[in-house]
């Protein structure tokens, strides 16, 4: 494109030097971002891999030595890895699923014209804007606290006994918070999907006598497929790395010790850098695997083969 443009403006075939310059300009535009990104994310990751091959405990800094895959053996045979993997998958999977479902509900409710629709949408997207550290604290103390929490007051009004969420149901506590924070994100993506539907076709369907449920099942849901897919993928990837509410609400107790919290504990409390680095590398691997897996399963559950396009 650029080359043809230039030949038109100069009225002659571009000289080699000129063509080379023309291709170097866009490359020069992309390079700074590329180099910056490589320097600050890729190189540290490579160094993490090197760290993971070292016997390096901060308590004995003079004894750093190469010990190949010993840390990985410790990670995979140790008592912490499997429970932590399970916590990570449970918390991520449940939160993604719940926030997708509630987000879809909100998106459907907001995909109508009604008085105050803008305000309702504003209220619903707000949790996504709230700083996760603040959200964790407010939910822990103001909402879910066993004595003064509003949720327990609500239970009391319904005649139910108070629940000590944070100590008795730590996993549920984290999932409630994450679902609250990520529902707006899902809702926004799904709403964008709903609003990109072809209204004429929907109307034609209703004229032809298709009820709202059938229209939803056979027209809206397949159309939403790629939006659900992307919302689930992005949500999974963001939630797999979740750290803030765990550090603030439960400190990894009661089955909430996710991989990223475990790494933090090993490195910054246990001071075992080699092992922590091995956990880091494993976390990256899990992120890739789970993101792919989650996507496939979600699809089998959600849209069970009623989409015929490839």
């Amino acid at each position, binding site marked *: 494109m650029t080359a043809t443009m230039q030949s038109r403006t100069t009225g002659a075939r571009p000289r080699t030097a000129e063509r080379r310059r023309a291709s170097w300009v*866009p490359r020069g535009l992309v390079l700074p971002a590329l180099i910056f990104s490589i320097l600050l994310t890729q190189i540290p990751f490579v160094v993490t891999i090197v760290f993971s091959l070292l016997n390096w405990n901060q308590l004995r800094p003079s004894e750093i030595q190469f010990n190949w895959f010993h840390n990985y053996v410790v990670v995979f045979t140790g008592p912490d890895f499997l429970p932590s993997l399970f916590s990570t998958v449970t918390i991520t999977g449940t939160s993604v699923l719940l926030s997708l479902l509630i987000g879809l509900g909100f998106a459907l409710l907001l995909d109508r014209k009604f008085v105050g629709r803008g305000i309702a949408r504003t*209220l619903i997207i707000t949790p996504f804007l709230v700083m996760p550290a603040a959200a964790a604290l407010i939910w822990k103390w103001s909402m879910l606290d066993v004595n003064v929490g509003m949720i327990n007051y609500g239970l009391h009004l319904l005649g139910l006994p108070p629940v000590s969420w944070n100590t008795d149901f730590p996993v549920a506590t984290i999932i409630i918070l994450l679902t609250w924070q990520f529902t707006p994100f899902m809702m926004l993506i799904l709403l*964008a999907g709903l609003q990109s539907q072809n209204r004429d076709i929907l109307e034609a369907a209703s004229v032809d006598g298709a009820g709202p449920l059938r229209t939803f099942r056979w027209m809206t849901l397949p159309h939403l497929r790629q939006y659900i897919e992307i919302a689930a993928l992005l949500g999974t990837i963001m939630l797999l790395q979740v750290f803030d509410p765990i550090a603030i609400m439960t400190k990894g107790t009661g089955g909430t010790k996710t991989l990223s919290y475990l790494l933090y504990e090993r490195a910054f409390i246990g001071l075992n850098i080699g092992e922590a680095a091995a956990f880091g590398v494993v976390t990256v691997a899990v992120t890739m695997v789970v993101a792919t897996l989650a996507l496939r399963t979600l699809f089998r559950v959600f849209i069970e083969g009623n989409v015929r396009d490839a």
Partner: protein
Amino acid sequence: MHKVRGALLTGLTWVLAAAFFFPVAWMVFTSFKSESDASSIPPTIAVPLSFAQYAAVFDRGAGSYLLNSATASIGSTIIVLLLAIPAAYGLSIRPIKRVQDVLFFFISTRFLPAAASILPVFFILKTLGLLDNITALALLYSAMNLPIAVWMMRSFFKEVPIDIVEAAQIDGANLRTEMVRVVLPILLPGIAAVALICFIFSWNEYFLATLLTSFQARTAPPFLASFVDGRGQFLAVLSAASTLAVLPVIIAGWAAQKQLVRGLAMGAVK
């Protein structure tokens, strides 16, 4: 019948939206109460309200933490824009070869958890004496947000009609004028969306902030997290501190809702 159902759905939407928003509203309301009113059950509604808790929060040094948050967020947003706008331009309007590869690279760095790089980053900063340094934090936030910014910017760039660019090129506009005079004005809403999202992610970031800063460069999220000391009642003052920390992003997000929604949708779907 149809009307009744519509009204019911509208009512339901309203109730659910209000319930969803309740924790935020309750936080703001609690921040104006006294400590004893804040933690009384049944909850108090008609009580005297004051700014006393906000004064207490600032007495604990909230000002410098909020300032650090602002420095890191605004600084990193500027760096990200300076890097992402040219890059997205090079990936869309004047495409280089292997656009797909470069884009894939950028998004894959986003999928890399912070866990992948935190240890080397920590030791490098420690060696360089840059722990607890706000510039270092801003640079890391830039790296964190750059991939999203490039992706979003690129989808906005793709909406610029190529005819306009070509017309400018025929006029003999060189690259810089072509970009500044022709393309940038069309892109301003998109740039605003990208800037807003980068600002929000940086402002709210906790993991790096808590590990890489301690006092000088401490930002608002780790300050908040260390706020609950377990002694006596703290709900009201915690609510005030949280409200202060949360408010800039909520106001920005509400004001620029259209751009935010568009930006998220585009960045996510395209």
